[in-house]
């Protein structure tokens, strides 16, 4: 099966992701920021699809866009918007932010200019059909221990949340 | 429309002091066989024959001969009389018993009625306005006793502007009932947790169930401000 208009979709999705990212940090209204973040996440899911990683794309949509962001919005909606709008957005962290941005930009530029030789000559072609199986094999085979540790960590977080939210259990 | 308000003739029963001397508390007199339940729960027995005609010591009855209030004798009355003496009169009219209590006895006698005489249910609190009297208002508490299945009324005369002790602490149900009396008559209740108008809007002027408040009278100012119309009529 031949992909259609690959370049076009790549730029479209990247552009959307970037637009969303910029909106996230420039919007004063927290709900608008969250919605822009969802746009970014969806665009990323599209990029994953283009990389022949449909499972990752699906998980991205279900977990991030459908699950986590809903909870984000849930919390933000209960916060008084008027108050947050009055607050200064670019506050005292602007210096740190600038340094981080410059450092990251430098890294990317360096990679682009000098790192081309270190990358493989053509993009890796993952077989589309076995993508899900490959992830499963990786997770439950090579990285079994890390996976279990991560799930334990999440369990701790759940228990902590329950304890904090409820006085009596 | 002041001409619409009636010129009220205060009913005989409303006179607390007038005939009081004539019928002294008959505590000595043996009054047998009048169980409380019977007196209160007269189902349809209030036929003219059953109630004796106006007795001698009744106040001047209206033109038509009619059953008039009579002294009411029962152990309950005896007990209360012993406690409060002449501040309390007991009457019965058409088989319904009521006390006319002196204003000063009000929260106390009612507390006694609830705590010692088991009148645990305050049915209603209401008032009647007699503009020509000195003490303009009759305030009426209708009480019922679940254990005794007996209903009585307690009546007290109060002057305009006087504040009455609230009975909310005795019967919580008095809360809204007193608010309604306040709303309609302008009688203030001391110790009421939240005395404000209940049926009429908060900013309304006047108390409609007073006799000097005409039937089509209204707070025009309120209507004009809040409803944006010239008049509600």
């Amino acid at each position, binding site marked *: *099966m*031949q992909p*259609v208009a690959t370049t076009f979709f790549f730029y479209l999705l990247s552009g959307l992701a970037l637009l969303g990212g910029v909106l996230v940090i420039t919007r004063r*209204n927290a*709900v*608008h920021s969250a*919605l822009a973040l*969802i746009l970014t996440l969806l665009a990323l899911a599209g990029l994953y699809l283009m990389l022949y990683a*449909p*499972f990752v*794309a*699906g*998980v991205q*949509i*279900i977990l991030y*866009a*459908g*699950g986590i*962001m*809903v*909870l984000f*919005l*849930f919390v933000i*909606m*209960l916060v008084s918007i008027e108050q947050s709008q009055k607050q200064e957005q670019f506050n005292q962290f602007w210096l740190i932010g600038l340094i981080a941005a410059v450092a990251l930009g430098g890294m990317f530029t360096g990679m682009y200019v000098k790192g081309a030789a270190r990358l493989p000559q053509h993009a890796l072609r993952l077989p*589309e*059909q076995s*993508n*899900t*199986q490959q992830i499963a094999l990786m997770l439950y085979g090579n990285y079994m221990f890390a996976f279990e540790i991560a799930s334990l960590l999440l369990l701790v977080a759940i228990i902590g949340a329950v304890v904090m939210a409820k006085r009596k259990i | 429309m002041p001409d619409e308000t009636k010129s009220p003739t205060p009913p005989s029963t409303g006179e607390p002091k007038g005939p009081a001397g004539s019928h002294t508390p008959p505590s000595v007199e043996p009054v047998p066989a009048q169980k409380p339940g019977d007196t209160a729960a007269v189902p349809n027995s209030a036929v003219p024959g059953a109630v004796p005609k106006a007795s001698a010591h009744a106040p001047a009855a209206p033109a038509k001969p009619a059953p008039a209030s009579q002294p009411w004798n029962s152990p309950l009355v005896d007990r209360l009389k012993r406690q409060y003496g002449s501040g309390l009169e007991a009457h019965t009219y058409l088989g319904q018993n009521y006390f006319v209590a002196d204003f000063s006895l009000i929260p106390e006698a009612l507390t006694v009625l609830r705590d010692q005489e088991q009148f645990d249910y305050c049915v209603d609190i209401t008032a009647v306005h007699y503009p020509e009297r000195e003490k303009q208002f009759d305030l009426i508490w209708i009480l019922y006793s679940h254990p005794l299945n007996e209903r009585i009324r307690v009546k007290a005369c109060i002057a305009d502007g006087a504040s009455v002790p609230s009975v909310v602490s005795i019967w919580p149900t008095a809360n809204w009932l007193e608010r309604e009396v306040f709303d309609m008559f302008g009688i203030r209740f001391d110790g009421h947790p939240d005395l404000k108008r209940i049926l009429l809007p908060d900013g309304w002027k006047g108390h409609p169930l007073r006799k000097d408040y005409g039937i089509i009278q209204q707070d025009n100012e309120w209507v004009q401000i809040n409803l944006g119309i010239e008049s509600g009529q």
Partner: protein
Amino acid sequence: MLDYITSYLTSNVTPGQAGNVLWAFIYILLIFLGLSVAVIAMNWLERKVLAHMQVRLGPMRVGPHGLLQPIADAIKLLIKEDIMPAEADKVVFWAAPLLVVITAFTVFIVVPFGPTHAVTDMNIGILFMLGVSSLSVLGVVMAGWASNSHYPLMGALRSSAQMVSYEIAMGLAVVSAILMTSLGQASTGTLSMIGIVEAQQAQQTWFLFKFFPLGLIACFVFAVAMVAETNRAPFDLPEAESELTAGFHTEYSGFRWSLFFLAEYSAMIAVSSIAVTLWLGGWLRPFPTWLSGDTWDLVFSLFPGFTFLMLAAVTFFNTARMPRHPYFRIQTLGLAGFGALLAVIGIVLFIPPVRDRIQDIFWFSAKVAAFMYLYIWYRGTFPRYRFDQLMKVGWKVLLPIALGVLILTAVVGVF
């Protein structure tokens, strides 16, 4: 060019897999139209069925037996004033119904109405459906928040909490069905919607009856969760009329409101399609093993035609019962015309090539329709759950059951 068009007809894959953009587009159009008609029909049916459950007649005025009522309603909604509250967040208020309706329709590109009757077949089909339909929560939340009013906000909070909670039980039930695809003699673990049905075909059983009663329980969990997921009675708290007036779309009116309506019904059809695909054998006809053989195949392939003929007969019967009065002449004619249309469709469905390609769609739709009837039935029967009870049912009843079924399915499948 003609070759490009006809080449697909002889292939036996979905247009998406064949890479045939034109046919994919035609399929998208067909699904969009079919879905709109289905929503309209569902609207009429719900009102009619519910009315007859409640000893009343339902719509009777617009068209014979109210057949044109949904269309009249649609026109009314389109020409109604579209109110946007002054204090609303304009952009979000505008985007919310769009998002809801887009997600509700997008999921249908992987719904397999037949072995080749889907826009495309993704190898993560079921994941895609769950993922995209979970996005509709966002629309609900946005609508509730953007209205800038208490009732919609509470409705949105309720509905997002509800949808997120029930997605978990729903997902676990789905996983147990997916697990079944990789078990048994034909070991083809797959997330593809078509693959799931084909697995049922290969295993000669609907997953509803596999590992009895595990499949049944999983289907039950899904069937409950899907009602909650679509905010329908008895889980219609976000729209609880008596409590929150209309929930998250209280401030919406006219066309925007109708988009929510459209989305709700197409979401109902979408989740029913998932249930049908996963447990009821998708497009497969009933009794594939019991009543097998060419004769039975023929008999079952005649079902669609007979169904339409029967509907036509019912219509003609009602035409005969119409009052004989000049006032009703147009209505009677209309009803007769409708019956004739049904009869023609029925006859067309008997033509062998049509019959062969249509019967998959028919069986799929019939199964979905059964679920839709359940939706109406629930609405007529049940009171509404309270919010804490709803959460209790979701987290303390359905989730453990779904987990247990998942583990048992794995255990039974391996040994």
